[in-house]
């Protein structure tokens, strides 16, 4: 098509099927690790992030390793909600379809134990939750029409309880988890039977640089591997590392009169 001059990835044929995925928030951390892993598994990828230079070098790395065009870069800010519909249309046409959508973008802007900062809270909510809504609504409508597809969104173990350290981050992830559950319940009746909520613990990414008290820190590659396995098995939820499932079972059930006295 004339509006797009960049070379496009080859289309699927019956003997060379290609699954197609969009990853929002792919320039670093878990998103980049997921992109590398999915590309190795044969996916054709559309990668979105704000940092165009990082995105371009990631695409180059993936395409070089694959020996063909397997990743395309689309610089995008998730808070630019209005541009999402046309961008999705563009990516759908460039990839030739869509099998998997990953919303990975997330920020954490701690405010300190005794402070309140609406600007930071708004930014967190816009990126972690409203940006997700802008994309997931569109993708859900699309998959609902197609009666197929797989949606993955990266929530967090932090969304399971409201903690003193980072209220808006906890709230944004809790809202995202709840929204994803509702979406899963909506879409399962249309054959979009997997809507994976990935809940990583501490992952070695920019987000925890300088964070105090991080433990069980895993590399982004391990989180990506766990998420990819869950995608293949069409799970509904995955904790990475898996031990967080047990920990969160306990944390979720700590009575409030104890929980409110804890500082973490």
């Amino acid at each position: 098509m004339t509006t797009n001059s960049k070379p496009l990835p080859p289309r699927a044929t019956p003997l060379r099927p290609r699954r197609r995925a969009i990853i929002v928030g792919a320039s670093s951390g878990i998103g980049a690790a997921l992109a590398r892993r999915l590309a190795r598994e044969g996916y054709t990828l559309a990668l979105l992030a704000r940092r165009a230079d990082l995105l371009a070098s990631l695409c180059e790395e993936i395409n070089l390793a694959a020996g063909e065009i397997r990743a395309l870069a689309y610089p995008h800010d998730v808070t630019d909600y209005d541009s999402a519909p046309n961008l999705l249309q563009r990516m759908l046409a460039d990839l030739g379809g869509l099998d998997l959508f990953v919303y990975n973008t997330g920020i954490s802007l701690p405010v300190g134990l005794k402070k309140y900062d609406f600007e930071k809270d708004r930014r967190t909510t816009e990126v972690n939750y409203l940006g997700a809504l802008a994309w997931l609504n569109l993708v859900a409508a699309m998959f609902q029409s197609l009666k197929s597809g797989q949606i993955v969104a990266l929530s967090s173990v932090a969304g399971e309880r409201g903690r003193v350290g980072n209220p808006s981050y906890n709230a944004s992830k809790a809202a995202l988890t709840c929204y994803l559950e509702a979406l899963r319940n909506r879409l399962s009746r249309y054959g979009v039977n997997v809507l994976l909520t990935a809940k990583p613990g501490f992952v070695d990414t920019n987000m925890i640089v300088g964070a105090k008290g991080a433990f069980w820190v895993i590399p982004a590659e391990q989180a990506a591997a766990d998420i990819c396995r869950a995608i293949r098995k069409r799970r509904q939820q995955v904790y990475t590392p898996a031990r967080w499932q047990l920990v969160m079972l306990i944390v979720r059930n700590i009575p409030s009169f104890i929980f409110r006295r804890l500082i973490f």
Partner: protein
Amino acid sequence: MNNTPPYEKLTLLDNFGHSLRSPAYLFQPTETEEIGQALKLAKQHGLTITLRGAGRSYNDAALNGGGIVLDLRQVNRILAWDPATGLLRAEPGVTLEHLWHTVLPDGWWPPVVSGTMFTTLGGCLGMNIHGKNNFRMGTLGEHVLEFTILLPTGAEVTCSPKKNGDLFRACIGGMGMLGIFTSITLQMKKMASGLLEVHAFPVRSLEEHLEALLDGAPQHDYIVGWLDATARGKGLGRGQIHTADYLHEGDGCQVRNHFGCQVRNHFDPDPKKTLTVAYQTLPAKLFGVFPKSIIHYFMAPFMNNPGAWAVNTAKYVMGLRESYYNQPHAAFHFLLDYVPDWELAYGRNGLIQYQSFILKETAREAWTEMLELSQRRGLPSYLGVTKRHRPDNFLLTHAVDGYSLALDFKVTSGNRSKMAQMLQDFDRITLEAGGRFYFAKNSETTAETAIRFLGEEAVAKFRSLKKRCDPHHLLESDLYRRVFG
């Protein structure tokens, strides 16, 4: 946000073999004016358009992942029919079924038909289909007197072999990539009877098979071979040949064999009866009781190597007895419609068809190599069909002075890479033998292969016509991207 694409139109479409699926914004116009609106919409959103008829192509010809697909089945009026001259003018969505239902009662039959009657006229011309009479009647395009085509530029152009001849020869067989047919004028063939005189006889080897096609073609109106692709050794290429000839009107003489039984009748005593749609219509039930729509469930257990060997061997043995019989046109031509949804028997990953057109001088050697290769690699075809062909002068022609062999293969999640490698070898063998390919069938033909068999000159000419007719590349299909990308 006002420019939101029509996501509610997104539909998951697949090919006839159910081996490939991709989503597209599906539009189903009923009038030719609506086609122009779709072109505008595509331009507005920066999307491409693929034309789709009945979706009977085995590959990605009617798929456009992430783009617009125009399903033209409802643009299906017969605009004019003259029983005196046999000239018919129709819109592209008319199916061959609709066509023969219209012309048969007046004693006419389409000059060329595909193996199924559910294809549309537009689709048939876009691929320039051939039938079991290709060696005699050529492709369907050779019987088109004129067509009008809406170009993506907005111009509506009339083409015939003499007027805009270069466009005529490129649009027919042009995969719907130059414009959208809006009306097609076709010359029908006069029939004296609704019956064909069919002769079925066995052939015991590939050599005998090809000789029978070569020698039989000049003497008959139709000829087609079934090839047992599971047979090895001396029986490689064995099968059964069916020839068919038009019957003449009248009682005539009856031909009897040496036991005194009537074996042939060159004449139809009651053409009024045989030239009716009711007489031609294929029965919906087998033996009057068994609904054909469920037969594919019973075929599925045989869709594996031992099952296919058993079925092919049984068919060959049953066909060893030579037979003569008269058969209605529809029953002879539309073999693929005998079992509705037969392609579902191939399972969830579907089937692909590989068809190669090879010169008569080199076909035997090439197909021996192909058949042996498929057996050695444990990937035999479950159905093989042969035909005799002649060349034509269409720009993207698939025809040669030789034969075609169509092989059906079952796709499984485990055999894809092995089969892809095998089809690459098949392409090499076909090209080395001076062969060609047909864009409605093969799903793995690459751009390099296409340029090798079409020739650089033909490809360059097609590209220059594409630039002239569709400067913004509004018309693109997954097939076009694959072979011309």
